[in-house]
């Protein structure tokens, strides 16, 4: 066999704009496409949330693009905010974006296992996003049924103004998204299992790769279920079947269905929905482990424990869907079982948290912007996660479920914590992706505004919830006891204004640094994983015709006897044995 240096990658980099940037097969370009798709989606989602916040405290103000907000308009905003954020941001950026870009490089491969499929996944997702946005522009507007799409509301077109064409587009968009996500999961799993470079055993993979791998398994098992449920819903909506719709009257009219079960949808949806939470947050956990180790200059505390914790979170995640349905009148015995399983997830989560803290402990910490966001992630993960065991108990969930307490809980842990993971990943990998450093001063401003802002917005929601403030209400003027809570709602809206303004610092920094940022070296953070051994930005085949050979674990920092305080994964084995 030829020496690695003589290996030449057979397919040349594509020429021409279309093949290079639009219908590209290169996992790096596809990763960036996913990332920028998520970036546009997050600003749309954020804009919708801002409109809701404005409406809540100034109900009579006419809003840009939407005019006067009727209760149903508020529900449309809520639905589209949730759907866009969960699917097209939290699922898209960490996995599709960074996973696509860095999984092959971190395991030493030249591309994903099936590049054509990879391109297809992105474009299906992209069409899904456009179809979702299309729901705003059809007669009746966007649907009202929330991101969870409970029937009968979501299944009966006459049930509300957005439930006609808008809801059809919503279901089709979700189905397309599932398809894209399934194809993408197939690619991630095959790539991880079959394309690791020589020496890169599973237990030498960076924890980011483990996180993407486990996330892909979760996606493979979960999105098929949502796809199936979506197909049933489409049939109920358009062909008159009765999978989910019982015999009911809507606006005094008997609907043509009978015998269907809305609970069936809830079971199918949440069997997907709970793993989805981990699909959103596992990549951030993997990244956080990576960054905490790199910027503490210490090996990650308990590598194997981290891997097994992620695996058990993934497995347990499939056994807890019922905790979203305590309100549905389920048998107390089922509720008890779901409750116990849910609280059990606290154990691997705590293992992860303590391992992050253990890694920080005694480290020579470098407070660079990626590290700030990683520590921010740990903080948000704890604050948002600690209310999980509260809600896992049916006796507490039943009063709290339809209040702002739940809104606060899942925004902190699934929303903001995952977003912090995305920010951390952006600041960490930006130099590799674009060849420039991001501006550190702006990054710090961005961190502090976002960190304080996130707490200022979502912590008070827990208090609103404990005061029994119902969620999903578009107006607070009808009930007297809510009047006293208006100042807190106002505070949240003001905090949202400031936090959202802070995101433009990030947006500016992102685009400004691409051109004017300080030139980045190949390994600016002095990290050990394979992406830092190649050029910046990486060449078309990732390693410029070389084949890396791995002889070290991913977190060898502060190795006794080594020449520097870190040992690259590709360093010859003799360097550190050195005795």
């Amino acid at each position: 066999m030829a020496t690695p240096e003589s290996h030449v990658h057979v397919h040349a980099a594509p020429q021409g704009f279309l093949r290079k940037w639009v219908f590209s097969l290169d996992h790096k370009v596809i990763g960036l496409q996913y990332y920028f798709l998520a970036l546009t989606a997050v600003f749309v989602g954020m804009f919708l949330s801002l409109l809701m916040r404005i409406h809540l405290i100034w109900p009579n103000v006419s809003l840009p693009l939407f005019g006067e907000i009727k209760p149903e308009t508020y529900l449309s905003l809520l639905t589209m905010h949730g759907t866009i954020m969960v699917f097209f941001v939290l699922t898209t950026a960490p996995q599709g974006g960074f996973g696509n870009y860095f999984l092959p490089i971190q395991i030493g491969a030249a591309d994903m296992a099936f590049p054509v499929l990879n391109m297809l996944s992105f474009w299906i997702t992209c069409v899904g996003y456009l179809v979702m946005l299309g729901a705003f522009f059809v007669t009746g507007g966007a649907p009202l049924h929330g991101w969870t799409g409970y029937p009968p509301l979501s299944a009966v077109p006459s049930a509300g103004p957005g439930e006609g064409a808008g809801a059809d587009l919503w279901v089709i968009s979700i189905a397309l998204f599932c398809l894209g996500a399934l194809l993408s999961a197939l690619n991630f799993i095959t790539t991880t299992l079959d394309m690791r470079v020589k020496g890169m055993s599973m237990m030498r993979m960076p924890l980011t790769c483990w996180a993407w791998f486990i996330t892909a398994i979760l996606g493979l098992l979960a999105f098929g279920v949502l796809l199936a449920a979506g197909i049933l819903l489409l049939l109920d909506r358009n062909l008159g079947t009765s999978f989910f719709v019982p015999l009911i009257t809507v606006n005094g009219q008997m609907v043509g269905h009978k015998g269907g079960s809305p609970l069936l949808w809830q079971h199918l949806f949440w069997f997907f929905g709970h793993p989805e939470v981990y699909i959103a947050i596992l990549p951030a956990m993997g990244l956080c482990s990576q960054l905490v180790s790199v910027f503490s200059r210490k090996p990650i505390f308990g590598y194997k424990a981290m891997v097994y914790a992620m695996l058990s979170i993934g497995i347990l995640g499939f056994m807890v869907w019922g905790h979203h349905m305590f309100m549905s009148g389920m048998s107390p015995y089922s509720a008890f079982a779901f409750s116990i399983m849910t609280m059990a997830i606290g154990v691997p989560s705590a293992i992860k948290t303590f391992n992050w803290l253990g890694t920080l402990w005694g480290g020579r910490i470098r407070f660079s912007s990626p590290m700030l966001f990683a520590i921010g992630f740990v903080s948000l993960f704890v604050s948002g996660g600690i209310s999980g065991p509260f809600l896992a108990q049916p006796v507490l969930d039943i009063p709290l479920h339809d209040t702002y307490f739940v809104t606060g809980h899942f925004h902190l842990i699934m929303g903001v914590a995952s977003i912090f993971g995305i920010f951390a990943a952006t600041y960490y990998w930006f130099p590799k992706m674009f060849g420039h450093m991001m501006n550190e001063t702006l990054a710090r401003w961005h961190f502090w505004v976002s960190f304080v802002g996130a707490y200022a917005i979502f912590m008070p929601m827990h208090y609103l919830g404990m005061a029994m403030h119902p969620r999903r209400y578009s107006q607070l003027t009808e009930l007297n006891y809510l009047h006293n809570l208006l100042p807190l709602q106002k505070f949240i809206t003001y905090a949202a204004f400031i936090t959202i303004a802070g995101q433009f610092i990030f947006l500016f920094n992102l685009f400004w640094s691409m051109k004017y940022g300080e030139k980045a070296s190949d390994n600016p953070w002095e990290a050990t994983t394979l992406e830092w051994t190649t050029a910046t930005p990486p060449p078309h085949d990732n390693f410029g015709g070389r084949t890396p050979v791995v002889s070290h674990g991913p977190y060898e920092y502060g190795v006794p006897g080594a020449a520097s305080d870190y040992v690259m994964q590709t360093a010859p084995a003799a360097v550190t044995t050195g005795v």
Partner: protein
Amino acid sequence: MRALFSTVSIADPAASWDHRGILPPREGDPGGGDGGGVYGSPNFDLRLRRARLGLLVGLTGILMIFISFTSAYVVRQGLPTLDPRTNALVQDWLPVRLPAILLLNTSVLLLSSISMEMARRGALREAALERTASANVAADRTQILWLALTLLLGVAFLRGQWLAWRQLTSSGFAIASSPSSSFVYLLTGMHGLHLLGGVLALLAASAATLLRRAIASCAVAIDVTGWYWHSMALLWVYVLCLLKFVR
């Protein structure tokens, strides 16, 4: 503390999941099972393994879709509905009399699975011959006939399913008549859609063989299409049993 930093030499036999070590796709492989490029025989095993692994993972996704339908089927079957005239809970699940043509379709599909297997084995044999022989083997490519036969039988199956639907409708079981008939259309339709994917894959594999693409490439394509086809045949037997015996 020293144990924390132990390093393992690259000759470590456990350096990869299958204890063999995996090189990334450099030589003659564009890094993917579905890209173009020049495929030399040393990469044949690797490409075959990768394509089969991908297929296995993909089939897991498909399995989840059908598990979801099955659970919906079982749950819906046991649900009563309110009769507005008598105000009592009644069962609205009417057992569907399945058209006899489904049995014919089943035998057609199973036959197609056999011809697919002949094509698959032929293709693999040819690829193996090409690798072992020093000179170029004159490819006889008899598998193209088997592929064509499979294609024909596959299309005949789909046509037969369509006829079964028509018979069902004319016997009073439209898609919305009863929850049981909804499931018959749903499950046969979803299976048909997946088999249609198999037909398209067959078309692609046949085209590659006819266009005299590299033998190894054709063999990989025919092999995974074959396994997919067998899985869909198996899935059909499952669907039929579910509809026939769980009603």
